[in-house]
């Protein structure tokens, strides 16, 4: 089944000098396991090559936080020199998390259903 990351996760991004910094959050443990497996640094680097100028995995640092059901990605050189230096409308990189949530995913039918249900249940009570 085809999904978007936004269907099964939430995210926030910000800046630190010329680095974009993204927190990605699963809605439940099953979601976290899938995200941790699929969202390799290489895959995220390819997704953001237009910002970092490199599709190499080394342009992205990934950190895992299983107790928080979270992954963190730090994109080197992604902000056109940083907030006070950038020409972009979004000079602070606040919308970069949304770009990540656009990522298309192809998941086995059953996995996808489980994760969508988990997300729906978590959102109901959050």
């Amino acid at each position, binding site marked *: 089944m085809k999904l978007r990351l936004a269907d099964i996760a939430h995210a926030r991004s910000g800046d*630190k000098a010329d680095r974009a*910094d993204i927190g990605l959050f699963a809605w439940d443990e099953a979601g976290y396991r899938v995200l941790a497996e699929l969202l390799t640094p290489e895959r995220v680097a390819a997704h953001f090559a237009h910002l970092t100028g490199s599709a190499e995995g080394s342009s992205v640092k990934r950190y895992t936080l299983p107790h928080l059901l979270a992954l*963190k990605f730090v994109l080197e050189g992604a902000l056109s020199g940083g*907030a*006070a230096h950038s020409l972009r*409308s979004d000079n602070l990189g606040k919308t970069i998390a949304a*770009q990540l*949530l656009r990522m298309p995913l192809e998941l086995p039918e059953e996995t996808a259903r489980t994760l969508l249900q988990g997300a729906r249940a978590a*959102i109901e009570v*959050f």
Partner: protein
Amino acid sequence: MKTVRVASGLGFYGDSWEPVKAAIERGGAQYVCSDHLAELTLAILRKDMAREPAAGFTRDLVPMLMSLWPLAQPRGVKFVLNAGGLNPQGARDALVAAFQAKGWHARIAVVTGDALLPRLDELQAAGQTLAHLDTGADIASVRERLVFANAYLGAAPIAQALAEGADIVLTGRVADAALFLAPLVHELGWSLQASGPEGLDKLAQGLAVGHLLECSGQGAGGNFGSAGAWARVPDLTHIGYPIAEVGEDGSALITKAPDTGGRISFHTLRQQLLYEVHDPRAYFSPDVVLDMGELRLLDEGADRVRLVGARGHARPETLKLVAGYEDGWMAQAVVGFCWPDALAKAEAVVASVKQQLKERRVPARELCVEHLGLDTFLGPHADRSQADELNELWLRMAVRCDDKRVAEAFPRLFPWMALSGPPFMGGFHGVGAPSQLLGLWPALVRRELVESQVTVSLTEV
């Protein structure tokens, strides 16, 4: 067990203090800690100060305290604010004048010593290279263009000011979370010199609390990055900024004032916990290095989350310094086109502007082209399937130049197109003054070289 309640003030220069009223009036706040200085803000204050030497602090300070002090004073609520920016004494003077005019009384402390621009030669003579933290580049390459250089101070001088009886502490650059850690240290008798795991873990809990609270509403469900779920956060219009109740043993509960909007939960808090921290296993601050690897956020009922498991490691021997240097000028223009062929017409304008820049030999170092409303934020991940049938499109072009006058000339490349360019141009924005661009220069400096010059001074109004 003794506990203390610290409340979130502003999260940036320009933020609202309306929600702070609820924290004071019915949230049990004992301290309001207010972060006015994003990484970029000193650059803005520097521009202010260039126009007016008495400026250089965030101008929201006085109106904010004019509004909040009458609520805070009878309840004994104290303030810690980094609103001093580049001019903490100027901030103090402005506040003193405003309090005097009202006949109000307060003890106002000022922390100075973070501003290092006048001391760079001395620091280099003392063996500090001030090389760029990420690239290792020599600071000589930007030395003549530096406009500020400030170290991130820790909690110690703020805690000292509180111990000396300050009601309001004004600082320049300090680590954001130190604004919150300081009252915890002061009230709960923690040691900033802690070296054992027990003491360090308490400081780490305090730092995590500070980080959760330093961005005001972002710690209470504001800017909740999600598809759909954001709309379930109740009543953002009346959001309650987060409040932490912290115990002597480091236990911490995050909550907010009753009858306010927003949401404090596992989901909203972890977005803030990881916000802009870079390596969550080693989040550096001047007072402790926080490891979030075992940290847990446990829902304890509506809008109550327990924070446990922050681990602390010994503070670094260096402080971080961030300097800003002048790096050219930005000019921009925005033009709107209506259907038909909105995108094609915008692209024709881009081609024309590029041609004009070339023919006039304009020394533009960089050109930024954005299709506002189409793909500015999502870039190549935007859906462009309707791009040929857009109802309308705003084109934004921005340019980077070394010379201010070149930047000023850039928007003049556009207006003629209203009569002589593609049809149905519906608006033109962009004859404003160009803005100066600044590069940021992070570096490390040995802490004793800075801390030996930090001063705390108390004024009674």
